[in-house]
């Protein structure tokens, strides 16, 4: 990911916009969605009325005008801070989305009409927004693809760097798993005809951008449950504050409305209440920054709960494709001759395996000249490829295929080659047997190269409690070897698409949550079945529709990051809730003595912070309560760090930091604020 995306949390232009939004969000219709802050808004309105009445008729029972105005202003600031937190999170999401959207501005499109005005397959120039679902357009080298679609004809190299940041061009072609193109990307060579798969403004990206911007964000189940708990706390403190009035009357202790409201606002969990939606938006924004677009906030949250992770071997655990690592000639065959034959058979072979044989042999093929060679291409039927020239027929292929050829010609498959084949297989390699004129002359060992650093990532996943499963088409022997070497917990060998599906279903039946990545159309059912399905952006439209996230980088290890983002999201909510509630201890000790101290002087003993005066105590508590919100915005946006140290250890750590810290910090904070406020009140 490019570093330019990690800009500072508070950019000037974003802050200005967010400040404006903070005022707009004061609209009660919007505020009521957040019960905690709605209560603060009501309290603020009441304070305003109190201020006005004191201004016109001050009988001294409600304290000085300055004091009341101060309380009003602080409550108002608390509201603005909370709104600002949400607005800045949205603004960051929007800014992120904007950079995506830039790639989707109006571009000219060459629309193809099957039955045109004059002749068939007529091409007209329209703007991209006029393209409807089902329309077809045409792109050639140099064109910007106007909107999402699926290639129905042709093949092209495409530069997707605008979306993925990856500069290497990719190949997209009709049919198969790499047929989808994304609006905003650029065709570098060749020409394609594309069918539009989304209505304007409703393309996959458009929908997801809207989510990130917060416009269509829905509360996740955990967020709902937390809101219920926070509403519960709010109601408890409504009861506490309302009943305090008759209690105080009984004790002949008049309480000012300002003091009662201050106590109330301090006690209800405004810190988490104010930051809750910011945390949720920031979670999706973090996913977007990792170049993953999520269909819903819920998907990010679910990612944090994943128990099982299905990963394709190729490209995820191993680097792309197998490479040749050894030549093993049969007995009585000259090694140099065998190597040369192997190279000859691979001369026209453009598969990575073929190329790697030439590479390993270190023979310059341009120096080799043969007369009238016939290249035999690999087919699924023969399961071998090779070359014919003069009277030489060289073939290379799977053990079974070559065995068949050689035995058909009456040769015996050499014992030592059979032995070698077994050794190679059990070491996780793939044997490629080479025959010359139907006689086996040796075997080439192909090995999977495990990505550097991948086993550390699996170790990290294991510590998170996530089981990793490798999916591969290899035989069980090879699969086992690679699985052990890479450090995955389980593998599915010789996997057919339905095997993935069955594995997911089995794990789900046992109550586990499963995540998988996929790109092909045949992955779509499994992607839909998985609790978290991440489709590659390069994948087919079907795969993208089936999953609930799309990875723009096409990086299969991205799931690990997604899991961490999901966990961070929950942790941030949990720790800030704990912090918010733990703060109440100190606030009680600041405000409650202040309420009664004038009529019950003995309660001075309860003023353990030795705050200057009742007014300064109350003001300090509300000021602390207000400024803690903006102070915690960076934490809410960045998220509390997740450490895979086991649940109990993590709880201990966070309980100490945010629980115990939440008790201590406000004592210090309120005392410090009081030192300043005490100068005036």
């Amino acid at each position: 990911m490019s570093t330019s995306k990690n800009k500072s949390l508070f950019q000037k232009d974003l802050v200005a916009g967010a400040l404006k939004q903070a005022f707009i969000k004061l609209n009660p219709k919007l505020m009521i969605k957040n019960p905690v802050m709605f209560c603060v808004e009501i309290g603020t309105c009441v304070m305003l009325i109190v201020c006005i009445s004191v201004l016109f008729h001050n009988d001294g029972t409600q304290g000085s005008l300055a004091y009341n105005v101060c309380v009003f202003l602080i409550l108002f600031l608390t509201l603005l801070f909370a709104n600002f937190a949400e607005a800045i999170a949205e603004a960051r999401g929007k800014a992120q989305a904007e950079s995506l959207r830039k790639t989707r501005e109006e571009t000219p499109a060459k629309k193809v009409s099957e039955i045109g005005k004059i002749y068939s397959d007529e091409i007209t120039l329209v703007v991209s927004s006029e393209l409807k679902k089902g329309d077809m357009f045409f792109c050639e080298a140099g064109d910007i693809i106007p909107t999402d679609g699926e290639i129905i004809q042709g093949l092209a190299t495409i530069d997707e760097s605008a979306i993925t940041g990856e500069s290497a061009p990719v190949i997209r072609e009709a049919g198969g798993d790499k047929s989808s193109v994304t609006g905003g990307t650029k065709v570098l060579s060749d020409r394609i005809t594309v069918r539009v798969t989304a209505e304007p403004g409703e393309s996959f990206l458009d929908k997801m951008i809207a989510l990130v911007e917060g416009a269509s964000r829905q509360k996740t189940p955990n967020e709902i449950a937390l809101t219920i708990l926070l509403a519960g706390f709010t109601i408890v403190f409504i009861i506490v504050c309302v009943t305090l009035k008759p209690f105080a009357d009984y004790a002949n202790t008049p309480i000012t409305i300002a003091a009662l409201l201050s106590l109330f606002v301090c006690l209800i969990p405004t810190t988490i209440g104010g930051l809750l939606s910011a945390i949720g938006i920031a979670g999706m924004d973090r996913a977007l920054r990792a170049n993953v677009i999520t269909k819903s906030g819920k998907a990010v949250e679910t990612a944090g709960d994943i128990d099982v992770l299905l990963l394709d071997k190729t490209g995820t655990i191993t680097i792309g494709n197998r490479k040749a690592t050894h030549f093993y000639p049969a007995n009585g065959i000259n090694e140099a001759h065998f190597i040369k034959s192997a190279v000859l058979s691979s001369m026209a072979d453009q598969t990575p395996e073929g190329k790697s044989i030439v590479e390993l042999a270190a023979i310059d093929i341009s120096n080799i000249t043969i007369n009238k060679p016939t290249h035999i291409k690999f087919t699924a039927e023969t399961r071998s490829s090779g070359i014919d020239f003069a009277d030489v027929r060289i073939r290379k292929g799977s053990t079974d295929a070559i065995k068949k050829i050689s035995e058909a010609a009456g040769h015996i498959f050499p014992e030592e080659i059979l032995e070698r084949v077994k050794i190679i297989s059990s070491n996780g390699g793939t044997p490629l047997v080479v025959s010359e004129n139907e006689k086996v002359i040796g075997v080439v060992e192909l090995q999977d190269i495990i990505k550097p650093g991948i086993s550390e990532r699996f170790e990290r996943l294991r510590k998170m409690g996530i089981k990793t499963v490798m999916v591969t088409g290899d035989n069980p022997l090879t699969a086992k070897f690679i699985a052990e070497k890479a450090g995955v917990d389980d593998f599915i060998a010789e996997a057919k698409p339905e095997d993935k599906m069955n594995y997911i279903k089995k794990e789900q039946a046992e109550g586990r949550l499963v995540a998988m990545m996929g790109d092909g159309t045949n992955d779509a059912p499994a992607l839909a079945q998985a609790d978290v399905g991440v489709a590659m952006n390069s994948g087919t439209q079907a795969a993208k529709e089936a999953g609930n996230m799309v990875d723009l980088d096409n990086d299969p290890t991205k799931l690990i990051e997604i899991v961490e983002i999901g966990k961070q999201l929950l942790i941030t909510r949990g720790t800030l809730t704990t912090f918010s509630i733990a703060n109440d201890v100190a606030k009680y000790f600041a405000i409650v003595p202040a309420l009664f101290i004038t009529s019950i002087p003995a309660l001075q003993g309860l003023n353990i912070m030795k705050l200057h005066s009742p007014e300064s105590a109350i003001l300090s508590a509300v000021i602390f309560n207000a400024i803690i919100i903006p102070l915690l915005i960076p934490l809410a946006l960045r998220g509390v760090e997740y450490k895979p140290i086991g649940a109990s250890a993590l709880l201990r750590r966070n309980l100490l930091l945010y629980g115990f810290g939440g008790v201590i910090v406000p004592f210090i904070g309120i005392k410090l604020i009081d030192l300043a406020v005490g100068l005036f009140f």
Partner: protein
Amino acid sequence: MNTELFGVVATFLLTILLAIPLGKYISKLYKGEHTLLDFMAPFERFIFKVSRIDPLIQMNWKQHLAALLSINMLWFVYAFIMLLTQGSLFLNPDGNPSMSPDLSFNTAISFMVNCNLQHYSGETGLTYLTQLGVITFLQFVSAATGIAALIVVFNAMKAKATEGLGNFFDIFLKSITRILLPISLVIAAILVFNGTPASFDGKDTITTLQGDTVQISRGPAAGMIAIKHLGTNGGGWFGANSAHPLENPNYLTNMVEMIAQVLIPIALIFALGFYLNRRKLSYVIFGVMTFGMLTFLIPTVLAETNGNPAIAHMGIDQSLGSMEGKEVRFGSTASAYWSIVTTIISTGSVNSMHDSSMPVSGAMQLLGMMTNAFYGGCGVGILNYYIFIIIAVFISGLMVGRTPEFLGRKIEAREMKIATMIALLHPFLILVGTAISSYVYKNDPSVGWLNNPGYHGFSEMLYEYTSSAANNGSGFEGLGDNNWFWNVTTGFVLILGRFLPIIGPLAIAGILANKKIIPESTGTLRTDTGTFGIMTYAVIMIIAALAFFPALVLGPLAEYFTLYNH
């Protein structure tokens, strides 16, 4: 260690020593394994046959609740009518009158809900018929109701729980025939041998050393006093409760009664460990609850043994501790221990006058009832604790980055809604009740409830509602509470404070039982660790205790600071 403290420590250790095997026994009993008391089976079968109940029918959580609530309703009607008419019924040698409707209402509810708030005095307020047929009867069945509700929750917590969570009537009856009845017999026997009366004769008349004639009430009291403690009921035979020399004759009976009231609540914690095969969980719960008890006990013992500075100021020796309102035969330490045990456990029996406790002790007694989850009442204590576990699981689940789960089941919005409502209920009942009474008194002091207006009077009102909401039953007895206002308001608080905290946990457990079990992984938050214990303790103290801080400041704390600042 001084002897008084030694007595308390010995009592507590003895309790644990007895509670562990009892817990094992309870677990065996409900697992359907063979136990010593299997000879009760024919008797139980007979009862089921007569009442036409098939004890093998499995019930889901809703059916359990329906059964529980309907039989409770029946008992209430029965008790209400009996108390209203007791004066003209038999077994009334002292010729005591019938109760007024509001007092009958309050008393019937109070005993049905295992609270035993008494707005009357046993010697003159009840007849032997109602003492046995209403009071003692309800003391058995209300304790059994609590145990049965808890066992249903245990069943729902099982790994392979299904819709069927046992048969309510079967569990209920067995908790009487196999637990409460046999142990009560043993306790009653000990009491009788130490001088507690068990006779149907009316008042006795004796001549004192000074030559005065004194009438002494008695009756078939021993059995009732046994179940009053064993079932965490607390309502005394005599008005002075266990401070009365016949109800609690000596230090030995005092120990027995203290052990008896904590026995089942602690045994049920261990039973949870044995029954669900989660012993570590039960140890953690026991640890948290014990720590909670110590949080309240230590300040109380210190306050009581240090004596009253105001009295010391008058030149009266306070080396025995603050002895106002306490019995010399028990001493200040044992009385302090009792006062905390009886308040955290919802027994509400007293061996000293809580109204005369030091302000700090009063605050601790109040907090014991406000939290109401450290050991807690028969069965219901763990149900209250269960709610706090759910909230603690939720918050700490978030803190470790996983959708919260308890024993493999996800805690979601619906469960949180119920848990939050139940956690809200307690502060609501107590604070609103006290607010109304404060308001009424402030506007018309002629209602005359309070003998000491001021902070202490406020504490008395706060205590009365706290005791009602917690179904405790003890009182700061300075309050004049036998009148229409207190009988009716506390009556409603009692009902709500009893049944909602039973319905809530049962519903949550029932809903959770129907959810799929999520297998444990290293990412799963374990609930049987010390860390989670600390979390639960913090949740209880912050949610249950903190909400009452302002009220406590205006009551006992104001009194404390006033007392010690002079």
